[in-house]
């Protein structure tokens, strides 16, 4: 290992990267764009308001009050529908996914129940809905909860079962705080994997590696300078992502030594994976396809964008075998939960993976001709 040679190589690689504006843009700007887009989407979801169409066939003070209750308790923005319109046809024509129908006689039966204690008096609220809509079930759940509350009040008895929430965290974390560590893990993986596969395959195909093999630079010097180069880019990219996240979304993420440790392990793991892949990719054109074939499944199955608990059981089991999952888990353990033990466990798994693939990567890296 020769630090002078490693440094010379690092300078050449960074200079080349700096002059390749398109690559620079996609390396640094793409994860930031993801954070801005998804952050904005999910920030607005925290104060989300659903649209609800209501057809009041009773047109009485009681039914008007009920609609107001839906508006205030259920966070709905109400659209009233003319009682003369056919409910089913309205849902089909106007592209709304749910129409709530308050039947005629609503007030009459309400008075029978509340004033005359007639327990047989009841009304049926009908949901006319489009089951193909993804958000309709959420609306129905909210509506059911609001209706349960109204029934509770009419019954006049306090509830027996109550619930209380006690978070293990000092504060509730938002989606963006879950999302940012995942994007850091993903972007470091992507730049390390693509940086290694693309660059090494191209340099090999063009004969630059063959030329270098006739100079004092060794395979170890070359690989270490690649690690240093990717780590430098990863650090710059991570700082940029965090700055944007703090500035735009005012995230509350804890930063300690675990962050650079996981970034470094992420770099080692995927530079190693890239070196193994480079052995099998002969053409520069197929290098990107090969790197994509590895990075996309990892990206979506490892919980970078959403918790793996949302996935079916089998996919959750698969996720736990993927290296990126442990980078995600480790970063979230340290940055959100400040759980050093969980971070240590995750770092042990990704550390072993990184060590194994890195050694295999060194063995797979072809330096001299015919070796």
């Amino acid at each position, binding site marked *: 290992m020769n630090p*002078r*040679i490693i440094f*010379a*190589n690092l*300078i*050449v690689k960074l*200079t*080349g990267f700096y*002059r*390749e504006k398109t690559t620079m843009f996609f390396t640094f700007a793409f994860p930031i764009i993801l954070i801005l887009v998804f952050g904005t989407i999910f920030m607005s979801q925290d104060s989300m308001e659903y649209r609800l169409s209501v057809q009041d066939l009773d047109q009485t003070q009681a039914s008007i009050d009920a609609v107001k209750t839906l508006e205030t308790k259920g966070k709905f923005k109400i659209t009233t529908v003319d009682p003369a319109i056919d409910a089913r046809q309205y849902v089909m024509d106007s592209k709304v996914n749910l129409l709530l129908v308050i039947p005629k006689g609503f007030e009459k039966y309400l008075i029978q129940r509340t004033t005359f204690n007639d327990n047989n008096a009841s009304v049926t609220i009908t949901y006319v809905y489009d089951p193909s809509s993804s958000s309709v079930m959420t609306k129905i759940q909210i509506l059911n909860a609001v209706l349960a509350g109204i029934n509770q009040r009419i019954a006049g008895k306090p509830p027996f079962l109550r619930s209380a929430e006690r978070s293990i965290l000092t504060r509730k974390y938002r989606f963006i705080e879950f999302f940012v560590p995942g994007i850091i893990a993903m972007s470091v993986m992507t730049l390390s994997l693509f940086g290694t596969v693309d660059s090494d395959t191209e*340099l090999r195909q*063009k*004969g*630059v590696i*063959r*030329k*270098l*093999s*006739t*100079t*004092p*630079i060794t395979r170890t010097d070359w690989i270490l300078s690649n690690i240093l180069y990717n780590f430098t880019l990863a650090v710059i990219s991570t700082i940029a992502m965090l700055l944007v996240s703090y500035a735009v979304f005012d995230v509350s993420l804890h930063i300690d030594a675990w962050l650079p440790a996981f970034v470094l392990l992420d770099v080692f793991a995927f530079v190693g994976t890239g070196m193994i892949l480079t052995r099998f990719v002969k053409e520069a054109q197929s290098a990107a396809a090969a790197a994509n074939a590895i990075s996309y499944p990892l990206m979506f199955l490892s919980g970078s964008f959403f918790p793996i608990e949302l996935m079916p059981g089998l996919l959750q089991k698969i996720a736990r075998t993927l290296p990126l999952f442990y980078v995600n888990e480790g970063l979230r353990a340290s940055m959100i939960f400040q759980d050093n033990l969980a971070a240590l466990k995750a770092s042990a798994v990704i550390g072993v993976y990184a060590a194994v693939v890195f050694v295999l990567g060194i063995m797979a890296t072809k330096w*001299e*001709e*015919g*070796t």
Partner: protein
Amino acid sequence: MTKEAEYAIEVDRLTKRYGDLQAVNDISFNVSKGEVFAFLGPNGAGKTTTVEIIETIRPFTSGRVTLLGMDVTKKKRDIVQRIGVLPQGFSSFDRITVRETLQYYSRLFNVKTDIDGLIELVNLRDKAKEQYKNLSGGLKQRLGIAIALVNDPEVVFLDEPTTGLDPRARHEVWEVLLGLKKKGKTVFLTTHYMEEAELLADTVAIISKGKIIAMGSPVELIERNANYLALTLRPVDDKVFEIVRQMGLGPVLDTHKNIRVRVEHTYDVQKILNAIKESGAGYLGLDVRKPNLEEVFLKLTGEALREVPGEMETE
């Protein structure tokens, strides 16, 4: 005087197999210090395999190769410090300038290089700040030669330095190589251009199908293998061909309808010209010359070094 001082390169019974393919077949030769040694042969003859073995970057099947007295299989680290290599199809980092590239290679060798002097030597002064990707083929090759010289090597390997270049760029590279020759560098050149070998080489080894079939100075090789004169006549009509044929000299017509005849002495030329004159026939042009390495190669292997339009057709 030690053997190391006498020879820069010693190759003894070198063989390289790729599975069933015998790329290099039991070849031996020595390259003296300070000489330009050319390996001449067509594509696939084994030139690059041999040169890469000597450069320490390709393993071999059997034999012994020493460079500056050092075994290439054991002393790679020492050897690379003392050699310069322009590999076949040389390329470099696209976004790095000529000057930065030379500085980079200089740092790899940990030497103080006169970068300006090198840029001057390969005539790239106007392009010193140009990125590699913006250079033409000839300029790239000249940069490659400059890179091969950053460590002031004792032996310079140039693997097909002018392949793929247009004639002008080729002549520009030759100028640089003549400069190296003047500086007394030991140069190992592989090429399939016989003009290149004839112009630059002190010794030429002709390689075909993995075997060296002839070796010596260009003049020696021609004297030894093609001791005749090549006469080319541009006839006015077909009668001339018939006259030469009747003289038993075996003329051939090339694709431009020129008559080509091989004769042993200058008086044979005179005899042919007299016979044409006496028959009342005529010719538009005449060329008499000594054969070149191309013809030596043709004679030794029965195949051309490269495809050249207008070569001889059979009678």
